[in-house]
């Protein structure tokens, strides 16, 4: 299965203290400073939308957002451009980009992200419909990746049930992980 369009969300701690309206400026400063290897284009503010995509830093290869889908605020990395390699390598690329963005927000904005819980979305309903079969066929590759990320700690993979949704897998480790640790685990 050629999984190209992977999104990874890392959840923010104490989301009630985060004011989304500040983040149009934050993301614009990322464009000014060209903080990523990717081409960063524009900022879209949807903070007025209930449980919406929040504030999005639109890029060419990927979008970054402080996403509030499901009323759970987190940093979402939404890959759009092709990444060469295996599914494991593509998950690694997306997770690393998401965690680096979290690391930057932790340093610059005093946010705190929890690495204990993550969400993977396969943004392509044709290649990866949200069915038990798809999840079963992908589970070994997901496990291979999260074994690396969590370095042997226990974790659970929970797919979401609605077949109309994109294939979405919630991952929860048994113990706490911070962003720095996870980045080290990926290095």
């Amino acid at each position, binding site marked *: 299965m*050629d999984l*190209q*369009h992977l999104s990874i969300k890392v959840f923010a701690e104490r989301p009630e203290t985060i004011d989304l309206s500040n983040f*149009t*400026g934050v993301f*614009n400063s990322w*464009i*000014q400073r060209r903080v990523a290897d990717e*081409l960063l*284009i*524009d900022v*879209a*503010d*949807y903070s*007025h*939308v*209930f*449980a*919406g*995509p929040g504030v*999005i830093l*639109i890029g*060419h290869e990927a*979008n970054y957002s402080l996403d509030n*889908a*499901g009323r759970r605020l987190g940093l979402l990395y939404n890959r*759009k451009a*092709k990444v060469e390699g295996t599914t494991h390598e593509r998950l690694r690329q997306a997770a690393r980009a998401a965690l680096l963005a979290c690391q930057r927000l932790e340093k610059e904005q005093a946010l705190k992200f929890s690495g204990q819980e993550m969400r993977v979305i396969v*943004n*392509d*309903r*044709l*290649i990866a419909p949200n069915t038990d079969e798809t999840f079963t066929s992908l589970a070994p590759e997901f496990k291979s990746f999260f074994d690396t990320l969590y370095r042997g700690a226990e974790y659970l993979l929970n797919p979401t049930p609605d077949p*109309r949704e*994109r294939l979405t897998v919630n991952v929860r480790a048994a113990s706490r992980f911070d962003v720095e640790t996870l980045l080290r685990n990926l290095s």
Partner: protein
Amino acid sequence: MKASNPFWREQLIDQIEPELAREIDIYETEIELRKQGKIDEKLFAETRLRRGAYGQRYDNGQRWDGQETQILQYPSTELTKGPNTVWDAPGMQRIKIPFGGLNARQLEVMADLAEEYSDGIAHVTTRQDFQLHFISIDDTPALMRRLAAVGITTREACGNSVRNVTACPYSGICGDEAFDVTPYAHALSQFLNGHPDTQDFGRKFKIAFSGCKDKGCGLVNMHDLGAIAVRRIETGVEKRGFELYVGGGLGSVPHQAKLFDTFLPEEELLPTSQAIARVFARLGEKKNRNRARIKFLVAQLGLEEFKRLVLEERALLPPDPEWTAFLNDLHAHDEQPLRPAASLNGAARPEGFDRWARTNIFRQKQSRYVTVTVTLPLGDATGTQLRGLADIARRCTRETIRTTVEQNIVLRWVSEADLPEVYAALKALGLEQPGAGTILDVTSCPGTDTCKLGIASSRGLAGELRIRLAEKSHTLDEAIQDLRIKVSGCFNSCGQHHVADLGFYGVSRHSGGYTVPYFQVVLGGQWTENAGSFGLAMGAIPSKNIPEVVERLTGRYVSERLKGESFQAFIKRIGKVEIKKMLDDLTRLPPHDQDASFYSDWGDTREFTIGDMGVGECAGEVVSRVEFDLAAAEREVFEAQVLLDKGEAQKAGEMAYASMVQAAKALVKEQFYDVPDDTDRIVSEFRTRFYDTQLFWDPFAGGKFGHYLLRAHDKHAEPATHEVARQRIEEAQLVVEAAYSCYGRMQAAKPPVKVKA
């Protein structure tokens, strides 16, 4: 580009109408040919526009980041999808929804596309379309196939074509209508879409239907072609027909549509529209796109001559069975309820329900059924919300969903007894906001968020006004509840500011080396009676002061209105001079070093200027001679409005013309300080120095505004009717705005002068 793109064709081939499938295949081939350099970029641009694939802000590969203009280094630096439009730059996809009608599956597909190709948001426009932003052109064929598989086309959603045919969202259920216009709107949309006679327009063509004359839902008077349902008894038999209007439109200079026929029989709707299309295609302006809408042709020919040509054309048309075929099946669009009619009958109502029900429920003519308005903030909805709405529509109705021109969605045929259930389901989706169709329900075009033409942030302002008004919604006086606020990012009126009680459109001013976002305040527009009258601009005010403008105007209306007095009547009664005085202090701009917030736009932290001046410079206090002169020109426009209000059309027209000359003189003096105070000479110098050199040309509107001045100079001695004077005032306002912009560009082009502290 999505990895699945190549597979959608095969996947959906059996679900797409063959003609539509072929159309998308051709488009995909054209994309490939363009990539190979075998299609000219201009031709490709029109090709994609006719499929609804539109450009988006920054697609020229540049963006001001608040400090400098960054060159966006896309991978395909050479390949373009139109003049000055980089291939890889994200674009917008517009999706036509004729009369706003949708079923649940279509809503779900919209949700899927928003998530997979866009930024997760589907946006409802002021013409009942959907728009998806930040779309890759390479994804558009797959996206179109997925829409086509559920019966939606993007064909002719943009470009010089017949755009989405809109209709009152209450058609078929409203007690005021003569009859349900839905089947007629559907038939005309189908008939004209891709019709050979609509392929050679010089400009777009918008059509609207309304079931009644009095309300605003159809907005017929601001459309190129508008039809209002009428019944008539002929020889004892009741006949259906339409009051047909032509030549209306908003845009920079709005035109009220002209009554073409008081009763066009239903069987004549399609052929007469076809004849109108033919005349427009044959005689409409093609070279100067700023004069190419049908309103200019109607004005130029006069209604009687235009009508004669259309009827002549109609007589020559070869008969087409499609003209009347739909009349045999008019009931195909009849809707039925899913659940039996039942009243609430004292059932328990959840908290917040009553307040919501007061504004978001429309009682249908069918007893005990209601239409629920789902308020979408700024027209935006997530995939999850759209799927949730699809679920409600399936559970409580027979999927009778429509979009509205106020950027909302309505669910029709809800049994009253089901309202608490619907409310609870909407609340779970975060879509239970009350205030539909009230002052809280601010509408806006995309503006600078995504539109290439946007000057100021209409969505930013609309969002701010929504927040402020919602915060005090419990205490808002009833008198202002039903006022409408509409915001456009520029003079092009996509936010329909002309038909609002309080309308705003984005402009800019240059001050002390900075460019500053402003909004023109447009008052006196009328939403009812199908956009019965258009408001006039009262003057430009810094963007950050606009909430206070709303506060003052509504506050004064509450305290000083006469019994039963409408907002339009109130504005007219107290007069523009008084309003101007009331808002005068809000026109003042604080220096940058005192309040820098005025120098960036709502929801955008970037400094609005394109300059690069350092902190501590005192240029903010310098007001140039040109700025004084342009302010004088602006004052004259205002005086012209006052004269018009007094019924002195001739003087108003002359004053408007004088203001244009004054603006031109202000600019000419920048190059030729001693220009004689002679009108002919000023206009001549303006033409040579600013018009012919294109220095005055707007980056997007071209020479349109300069042309207004030159035409006014040629015609100013002619007698001015009220309508002519009004139009000249509109044009004068735009000439003055263009002069401000031109001066801003001239200043920006100068190297910055650093002043030592």
